[in-house]
C-alpha cells in the first residue's frame, strides 16, 4: 500500500531582506521577496528520503498563503515531490498560529495521509508550534524536532536532541514529524526536476472547499492581537579599535569600565 506523505511548507519573506510589518501589523509581504522557508527544505528532503526507502510512496506538498506562495510549492515539486495543494483565500490575511493550524489540518485531512512532515519553525513567525498544534488537531502522535528520522513497518523512529538530553522516539503511523536543520542537507533541484515540476498538479483550494468558516481565521478571527510594532532603534555606534598589539588589553579596559570584570 502506498505511503501517503504530506509536507507542510511555508512561503516566507527572505530573511536577508529588510523585513517589516504592514500598517495593520501583519507581515509586510510586498516589501521583500518571498521564498520557500529554508527550514522547510529540510522537511521536503526527509520526506523524499522516507519515500525512497518505502516500496511505494506519494508526496504532497501543502502551503497556506497568498498567490505568490505557489513559488514555494514549485521549489518543493522541483526537489521531487509529486503533487501540491495551495490553500489561498483573502480571508486568511493575518491568521495566527491557531488559525494556521486549523487550515493546515483540514487540508491535510482533505489530502489523505499516513505521515505529515513539517519544518522545525518558520523563518518569519519562528513560533515553532504549528507542528505540535497539527498533531493535536489531527489526533496523531507528534514526533517532533528530529535530527534523524526513519519510517519502517508502520512506525516512525527518530532522534530528538533536547536541552538536557538526546531522546530516541518511536510512534505508530499515522504520525506527524518535524525535522531540524541537523537532519541532513537539502538537495538542489536538478534541471530535470525543475522542468518536471512545471507539469505536476497543483490543487487550488479555498476556505469553502475545506468547510472552514472565514470568521475562524484572518486578523479578526485570530486569538491573539498585536497592539504595536516598533523598529528597534539602531544601536548607537560602538567604539571600534584596530588591534595594534594592545587590542586585548583595550577590550579588558572596556569590560572593566562596564563592571564585567
Amino acid at each position: 500500500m502506498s505511503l501517503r506523505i504530506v509536507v507542510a511548507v511555508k512561503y516566507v519573506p527572505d530573511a536577508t531582506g529588510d523585513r517589516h510589518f504592514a500598517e495593520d501589523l501583519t507581515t509586510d509581504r510586498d516589501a521583500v521577496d518571498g521564498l520557500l522557508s529554508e527550514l522547510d527544505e529540510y522537511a521536503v528532503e526527509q520526506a523524499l528520503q522516507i519515500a525512497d526507502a518505502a516500496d511505494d510512496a506519494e508526496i504532497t506538498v501543502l502551503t497556506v498563503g497568498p498567490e505568490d506562495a505557489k513559488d514555494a510549492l514549485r521549489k518543493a515539486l522541483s526537489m521531487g515531490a509529486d503533487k501540491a495543494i495551495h490553500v489561498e483565500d483573502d480571508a486568511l490575511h493575518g491568521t495566527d498560529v491557531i488559525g494556521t493550524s486549523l487550515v493546515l489540518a483540514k487540508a491535510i485531512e482533505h489530502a489523505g495521509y499516513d505521515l505529515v512532515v513539517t519544518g522545525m519553525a518558520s523563518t518569519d513567525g519562528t513560533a515553532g508550534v504549528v507542528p505540535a498544534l497539527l498533531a493535536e488537531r489531527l489526533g496523531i502522535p507528534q514526533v517532533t524536532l528530529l535530527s534523524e528520522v526513519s519510517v519502517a513497518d508502520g512506525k516512525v523512529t527518530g532522534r530528538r536532541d533536547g536541552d538536557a538530553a538526546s531522546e530516541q522516539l518511536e510512534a505508530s503511523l499515522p504520525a506527524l514529524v518535524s525535522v531540524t536543520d541537523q537532519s541532513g542537507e537539502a538537495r538542489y533541484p536538478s534541471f530535470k526536476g525543475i522542468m518536471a515540476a512545471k507539469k505536476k498538479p497543483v490543487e487550488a483550494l479555498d476556505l469553502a472547499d475545506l468547510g472552514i468558516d472565514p470568521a475562524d481565521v484572518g486578523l479578526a478571527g485570530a486569538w491573539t492581537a498585536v497592539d504595536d510594532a516598533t523598529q528597534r532603534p539602531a544601536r548607537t555606534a560602538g567604539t571600534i579599535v584596530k588591534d595594534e598589539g594592545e587590542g586585548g588589553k583595550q577590550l579588558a579596559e572596556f569590560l572593566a569600565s562596564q563592571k564585567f570584570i
Partner: protein
Amino acid sequence: MAEVLVYVDHVDGAVRKPTLELLTLARRIGEPVAVHLGPGAESAAPVLAEHGAVRVLAADAPEFADYLVVPKVDALQAAAAAVEPVAVLVPSSAEGKEIAARLALRLGSGVITDAIDLEAGDQGPVATQSAFAAAFTTRSRVSRGIPVITVKPNSAPVEAAPAAGTVEPLEVTFGPLATGTKVVARTPRESTGRPELTEAAIVVSGGRGVNGAENFSVIEALADALGAAVGASRAAVDAGWYPHSNQVGQTGKSVSPQLYIANGISGAIQHRAGMQTSKTIVAVNKDAEAPIFDLVDYGVVGDLFQVVPQLTEEVKARKG
C-alpha cells in the same frame, strides 16, 4: 486575587532559573501557582515558595518521562480546570512551546511564544516579543481564552518574594493521545561545568574564524576566566568543531545575556536572530567590514588568536 499558573522546568526537583523568572513575571498579573510534574516536588517547593508560589500543584507518573509532551499537556489542562487561572506561563524551551501550544488549543485560547517581557494590561497581560531577528519589538495580547504565554530565559530578574508554597496533589487523567510517542531511550547531555548557555550572564562565542576544534580552547579559556558559557556559530558547528547544543542563532539557542562576545563571527542575520537582544555586545574580527560590527558596543578589528588570549590574561590578572 487572580491566580496564574507557572509551569515548572526542573531536573528531578532542581528548579531551573527561567522558572524563577516566570514567578517574577507572574506576580505582575496575579498570584503564582506552580505546576510541578515528575519527581522532586518536595525539594522544589521551598525554592518555588521563596520566589512567590502561593501553591505548588504536583503530579508524578511514569508517563511524564516515558512519552513525549502530551502527558504534560494533560496535566496542565487538569491544573487549569482546577485553578481557573488568568494566564498560564511556560518557559520558552522547545518542549515548553509545544506544551503551551497544545494546551492553548485545548483551552480555546490564543498562544504567544517567546515573550521577552510581560505586564498587566486593561485587556489582560501584554507580552513584548522581538520579531524579524530582533529588528522589531511588538506588544501583543491573547484576545480569546486564558492567555498562554511562553517566555524566553533572561526576560525578568529573579526576585525573592516569600509565599506559602504549599504542595497539593494534582489529579491527572491521561487521555488517549498521551502515550502516542514513546521515549525509548534517553542520553543525558554531559555537563561541562560551565553555566547553561541560555541562562548565562556572559556568553563567549566562536565562529568560522576559530578555524578548528582544538582552537576552541582559546574561546573556552576566555569563557572560564569570565565565568561564561561558550557559544558557537552554525559554521563552527557544521564544521564539527563544537556541539550543536552550543549553537547560537535562529536554529540554535537564543541568548540574551548581559554580555555577548563574538569571536571570528561575521554576524549573519540567522546568527543575529539569536543574540541581538544581548545587553552589551563585543566582537573580535579581523575584517573591519564584518556586519557584526554594526551591532557592537565595543569591537576590536584584529586576529582573535592575538586579541583573545591577551584579553584572557588581562581578565585573570584583574580578577586576581
